Structure formats: structure tokens, C-alpha cells
């Protein structure tokens, strides 16, 4: 096979709708499926597709993403002929200005791209959950002699306005492209996976950026359609964008029923960095005499002495006697103390839920007052290293800020939609 494309993973999105989960880390570093982080999907797909060079573009450079990716060794991408690296922002640009748009981000890294012999660029997003062998799409792109190929999948009509919609002819050639249209002309949605002819694309992007046009879907694709060969590669399979807490929770629940949902990490040959969060050296999970565990997804290093139902647990979670965890997603090293009840909660790492505390949404919960767009489906969100004190009562759509301590709780009750900050 000819040299595979150089891969650029756009991992710069703010992830603002993931709220506290994305305040202290880059969105692609958000934990998912117990032991993984969101970027593991695109990294594993790339490594498993024989890609040799990967650049990860991210706006924030927190330690956790750099630690997680390292030199790519966890995905077998650290070797003489393979590399995987984080591409830092340009010198002199402030964080707010650097990432003007997806096309602009590619353009500012043209030196990394052009350093290699590849003729094509594989452009991916770092926060999508899917399994794909890119070689099929690469072959399609080459057979069609395309300048630009967009991976597309069928989307439900009522969701079409959230996607880039491609209108194609019988040959899969894209004749029209609408970015998040109010009136969609079709139901083939762009997955944010592109293969681009290197020279054609880079020169077009430079032209567009000089006109202030910086977005791949909104600017580059419509421009290329006019005079270049743009094709749509049809994809079928599980694909999710976990941009909101609701979709994050839904996808986490999909892990529990892989045959029904199609989200089957075991079949996907997923790899992660087992050294980050010390996943590697944890002992196997132990279940006590009174453990009750059903329909859940449990990582190593947990100790379960209570009830866990329909939940996803990262490593190191302790569920004490008579505690219950239901419909929840708990990150690493959380302690759920005796007698507490945790329902429909997403919690970041190292939180402590005190004895007898009850976290439970109900029918009439109001949306979160401070963040109505983020917390409105009942989910309770606990920020990292926060504490819910003994016998506290927390209702749906509540948010507890990271690092909240006992003294920040002036009362033990959080009514629905309330936010508790630290003082």
C-alpha cells in the first residue's frame, strides 16, 4: 500500500457543555468507559488502521492529556517510523485567538504536515466515539481520485440540522453541502472525518483563511465542491458525539448493553494509556459478601460491598456496605460511603459521598439555574475532589463544584437545579 495519510486530530474544542468535567482538562482527556479517555477512540482507530504519523491539535495543554498521550507508546505509535505528538499552539498567539476554526488549525500546522512524504491528510475529531478502519475510506478516496472525501452516515431527519449535510449523486460525489442547515436537503450527515489531498487542500485553506474563512464544514467544503472532486464515503455503525452531559451519560449506558447498542469496546481493539491514573498497577476488583452487582461496567481496582446497578465505574471506586449506585457514571477513586444512595449521577475523580447521603433526581426537577443548557435532564454532576457530606440530600440537575468541602455546605440540602460553589 502507498504511504497512509498523515493524521491530524482536532482536539481543541472547549467542551463547555460538559461543564465541570472539562474545566480542568482538555475535552479529549475526559474519562469515558471506565479506563479510557475520549481521544482513545480516534487514536486506537488510527493506530489500528496503519497510520504512521499523528498530530494532536489542542487548545489547552494540561498535564493530563500530555501524560495520557506521552509519545504515543500506548497505541504503538512510538518508534523510528511512527510518531504521535501534541502540536502546541503557535508562538505569540493568545489562547483565545489561536484556534480560529478547524481549517485554520490545520493551516497553522502545515509545517508538521509537509515534513512528511504523505499526499493525503486524514482529519479527525478527538471527541467522537466510533470504530472505523480508515483504510477502506483511504482506498475509496484513491479510487475516486478525490481531492476531498467526507465520511458520512445516515442521520435521523429530526437531527439533520445539527450536522453538516451532504447531498450526493449516484457516484457518491458531493454536489451540495450544508453546514447545520435549518432546512436540510438530505439525511447524510458528515462525521467530521475527512481525507484531504494535501497540496490542493492546504493551498485552498490558505486562500480562505486570508478571507477570514476558517471552518472546514462551513467554508472549505463548499469552496472545494465548486471546482474539485469531493466525495462522500458511506459509513454504517455506532457513532456518537459526546458533546453534552446527556449524550455522555447515554453513551456510557450504551456500554452496558453492547449487543443492543453496538458500542462494543472489546470488539473494537481499543487501547489506552494504562499508566495514566495508575490503572496499570491496581489489583483486580473485589466483591464483598453483600455485594449486589447487575448490568454494570466495572473497571479494575474497585471494591464493591454494596449495590451497583446500571452504572459505569472507573478504577478505584469503593462502594461501601448498604450503599447504592444506580444509573451513574463514577470516575476514578470515588468513595461511596455506607448507606448512601447515588442515582443518575456523573461524578469526577476522588469525590467522597458521605454516609447516608442521597443523590436522586425526580420527576419535577427544575433545570440548573446557573447552567440551564448543561444540566437539564435530571443528571447530577459532582466536580472533582468534591465532598457530599453525611446525610445530605441532593436533587436532580444539581452541580457541586470541584474541591467543595464540608464547610461549603451551609445546609445539607440542595434543591433541584442548585449549584454549590466553594468559598
Amino acid at each position: 500500500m502507498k504511504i497512509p495519510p498523515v493524521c491530524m486530530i482536532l482536539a481543541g474544542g472547549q467542551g463547555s457543555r460538559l461543564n465541570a468535567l472539562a474545566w480542568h482538562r482538555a475535552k479529549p482527556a475526559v474519562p469515558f468507559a471506565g479506563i479510557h479517555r475520549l481521544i482513545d477512540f480516534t487514536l486506537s482507530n488510527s493506530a489500528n488502521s496503519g497510520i504512521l504519523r499523528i498530530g494532536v491539535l489542542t487548545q489547552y495543554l494540561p498535564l493530563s492529556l500530555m501524560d495520557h498521550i506521552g509519545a504515543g507508546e500506548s497505541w504503538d505509535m512510538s518508534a523510528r517510523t511512527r510518531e504521535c505528538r501534541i502540536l502546541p499552539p503557535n508562538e505569540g498567539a493568545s489562547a483565545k485567538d489561536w484556534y480560529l476554526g478547524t481549517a485554520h488549525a490545520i493551516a497553522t500546522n502545515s509545517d508538521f504536515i509537509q515534513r512528511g512524504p504523505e499526499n493525503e491528510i486524514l482529519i479527525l475529531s478527538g471527541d467522537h466515539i466510533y470504530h472505523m478502519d480508515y483504510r477502506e475510506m483511504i482506498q475509496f478516496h484513491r479510487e475516486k481520485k478525490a481531492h476531498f472525501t467526507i465520511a458520512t452516515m445516515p442521520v435521523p431527519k429530526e437531527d439533520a440540522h445539527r450536522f453538516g449535510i451532504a447531498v450526493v449523486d449516484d457516484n457518491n460525489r458531493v454536489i451540495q453541502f450544508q453546514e447545520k442547515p435549518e432546512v436540510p436537503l438530505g439525511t447524510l450527515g458528515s462525521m467530521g472525518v475527512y481525507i484531504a489531498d494535501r497540496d490542493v487542500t492546504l493551498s485552498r485553506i490558505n486562500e480562505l483563511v486570508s478571507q477570514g474563512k476558517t471552518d472546514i464544514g462551513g467554508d472549505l467544503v463548499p469552496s472545494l465542491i465548486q471546482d474539485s472532486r469531493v466525495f462522500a464515503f458511506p459509513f454504517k455503525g455506532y457513532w456518537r458525539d459526546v458533546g453534552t452531559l446527556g449524550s455522555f451519560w447515554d453513551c456510557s449506558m450504551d456500554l452496558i448493553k453492547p449487543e443492543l447498542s453496538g458500542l462494543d469496546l472489546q470488539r473494537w481493539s481499543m487501547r489506552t494509556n494504562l499508566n495514566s491514573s495508575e490503572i496499570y498497577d491496581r489489583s483486580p476488583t473485589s466483591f464483598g459478601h453483600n455485594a449486589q452487582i447487575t448490568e454494570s461496567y466495572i473497571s479494575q481496582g474497585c471494591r464493591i460491598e454494596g449495590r451497583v446497578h446500571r452504572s459505569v465505574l472507573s478504577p478505584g471506586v469503593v462502594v461501601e456496605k448498604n450503599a447504592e449506585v444506580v444509573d451513574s457514571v463514577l470516575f476514578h477513586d470515588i468513595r461511596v460511603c455506607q448507606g448512601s444512595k447515588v442515582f443518575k449521577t456523573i461524578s469526577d475523580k476522588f469525590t467522597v459521598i458521605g454516609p447516608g447521603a442521597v443523590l436522586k433526581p425526580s420527576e419535577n426537577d427544575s433545570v440548573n439555574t446557573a447552567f440551564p443548557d448543561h444540566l437539564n435532564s435530571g443528571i447530577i454532576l459532582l466536580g472533582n475532589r468534591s465532598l457530599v457530606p453525611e446525610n445530605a440530600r441532593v436533587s436532580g440537575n444539581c452541580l457541586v463544584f470541584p474541591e467543595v468541602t464540608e464547610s461549603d455546605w451551609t445546609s445539607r440540602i440542595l434543591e433541584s437545579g442548585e449549584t454549590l460553589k466553594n468559598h
Partner: protein
Amino acid sequence: MSKTILRARDTLGMILAGGRVNELAALTLHRPKSAVPFGGIYRVIDCALTNLSSTGVNRIGILSQYRPYSLMDHVRDGRYWDLHGFRRGISFLPPHTGESNSDWYKGTADALYQNIAFINHNKKALTLIVSGDHIYRMDYNPLFELHNRTGAEMTMAVTPVPIDSASHYGLAEIDADGFVTHYREKPAYPISSLASMTVYLFDTRVLIDELKKNAKSGKTFQIYDEILPGMVERKSVAAYCHNGYWAYSRSLDEYYQSNMDCLGKQPAADLTNWNLHTNHDSGRIGDHPPILTGTKTDIRNSIISQGCSINGLVHNSVLSPMVRIESGAEIHDSLILEGSVIKEESIIRRSIIDKNVVIGRNARVGKSSETGKEAEPNRNEPNLLHCGLTIIGKNTFVPENMKIGTNVIIFPDVQTRHFTGLCVSDGTTVFP
């Protein structure tokens, strides 16, 4: 006379990992005892490797002999125990042809003798010889302290054992200064209840002298037999007593028990606090995913490794990675190794099931301890298997509806055609 204070950094570690150990029967048919899986995700040799590396001994030779490939694959370059780098390293030392007719290692002393060049090459003032076959967690630094303080030529580790089983071990009597005054290997009448752990910290110079002497005049070429007694007589052996958990695991029952010792609220083999390091990679493309449980799951008092998929009952058991328990199956008091599948409605009791075994639907394997108490011992190997366990070897396929009794050994690679009828009675062995 004052000696230099010698520490872990002045020490070469040598792990005795060669033995097959017949007593573990079908489990050691394709692997040495040190490579036998333990505690879900570990192998027995992880104890010696973790103990040495956490003590600070960074240069290690592994004396391997019997079928070493799974061991070599597991240990690789030592990186999982932080034993890979500029000033650290692991070397495998299988039998090799030397200057004259070199044979299989004849014994522990012979194995070391044949590797004197390796020992000299590393130029360490001390050599710490440990068995790779035992299950325990220990910091060896107290041995160094005792060794320096007493000026002994060799310091060994001993551990208390119950007096009624003491005759199975090498036993030491120790005086008030910490020196060994008497040593007897498996004596009919126990002289003490302190058993040798096969941990020997030698002055390298003395070790080499002793090995050379033994090579000339030895018969059994075992350290405990031909080197230790002489040194004890000239009062140059000190002994440090380790009071923590130590499992010799020499029989099927002991091996089974050492896994069960990992269970419970305060387990004797406290895996959570031992913090053993191991190699999680087996050349798979993906990592083990988290444990998946279903609507029929009932897990109590058990250890479940990552990658398991459990939709049945698992009580008082230890499961290695990627074990699948299908709907309605029940596992009681058992040990199941990597990748095995127990199909619907099967019931497994007091069994050790090796890797990649498939137990077909509605099978019955093993018996509970009450029912199995008076069962006939295994007819082929009555001394090895009489305690009411059922052993199923690697890669075996047990057809659906089979009934397999207790004290049964099913050899590795057995398939449907090797079974005669739907029942394997107590004490039977099935060969491929």
C-alpha cells in the same frame, strides 16, 4: 572487624524459576511453577520480581529451565517491574553449553555454578538468591541489616509454619544473636517451626567458593542439601524471621488455597496492599475492557479480573481476565484462568479451570466440600489429588450436559471425542 555496609544496590538478584513441580500436575504441564497464574491477574513470579525491585535490587538473573516461553513472554525486558533502564536489567539464564559438557541444571547449586560468569560479570558484592515459586510480599532490606550487623557470610529468611506440617520444609533453629545453629531438610521430627523460604543473601565471594567446591564433590547439587549445612556448622549463617503471609503452594490443594486466601474482608494474601506489579500485555491488540455484568449477575466474595463478562453467579471464587460466565451458570469456590467460557446453566464447584477452556451448557463440574469429602482420590495420582478438587487443563472442551466428579484431572487439549459417555466419575483422569 568492621565490614562495609552493603545494601540492595550492591546486590545481584538471582531468581530460581526453573522447576516444573510435578505436584501441580496438569497446571504445570506447559509452564514452570513460577509462571502459574495467581490472584486473577498475576503470575507467581511477580512476587519475587516485585519484592526484589521494591527492595532496590535492580540487576537480576532468572534461572529458568522447564518450558520457559510463557515466563519469558511475561517478564520480557523487566519494564513492568521497573527493571529496565541504564543501570538496571533482567537476564534470562537458561541452560547453555559451557566449556565442557553442560547439561540441564542438576540442582539449584549447579544452576548457579553454571552461571558464575554472569555473577562475576555483574561485580556485585552480594548475591540474593530467591525462589520464583513462592507467594509472598516482603521487603528484603531487613536481611541486609541483619547481614551487615552479624557479619554473617550468608543470611537467610525463615518464616513460622504450623508445627504439624513442619516436616514438609527445611527447618532452622536460631540462637539469640540471630545465627542458625541447626538446619534440617524435611526432618521426620521437626527441630523447630521456622521454615526456610529459599531466600539466601550471600557474600558473593563466599557463594562462588561454595559453588566451586560443590561442583567438584556434590551429589544432589542443591543448596539446602550440600551448601547450607556446612555453612551452618561453621556458624556463618544468620536468619531473619518473616512473619507475613508466605505460601509454598507445592500441592494442588495449597495452590488452590493460596488463591482463596486472597478473598474476604481482610484477606491473608492482601493483594490490594501488596501492590504487586505484573505484565498486563499478552500481545493482544486491545487492552482488557472493564468487567461487564448483566441482569442475572450475582457476584459475592470474589475477585474478578478485567475483561470478564459475567451474567451468572460467582461466589467465593477468583477469575482471571476475559472469563465469560453465561446466563444462569454458577461458579462456587473455584479458580478460573484466562479466557475460559462457562456456558449457560453449568454449575462449577471447587474446581481449577485453566486457560481457554470451554465448559458446555448445563454441565456439572466438581463437588462441594461436604459431598466431596469422602470421594475417591485420583486413581492415577492419588498423592497429588485427594482433597476434593477438580482440575481442567488448558484448551479443553467439555461437552454440554457432562457430569464431572471430584479429584478428577482433565488433561490439556481434551476434546469431545476423548470423553466416553456423559459422566466422568470421581478419581478419573481423562487424557487427550
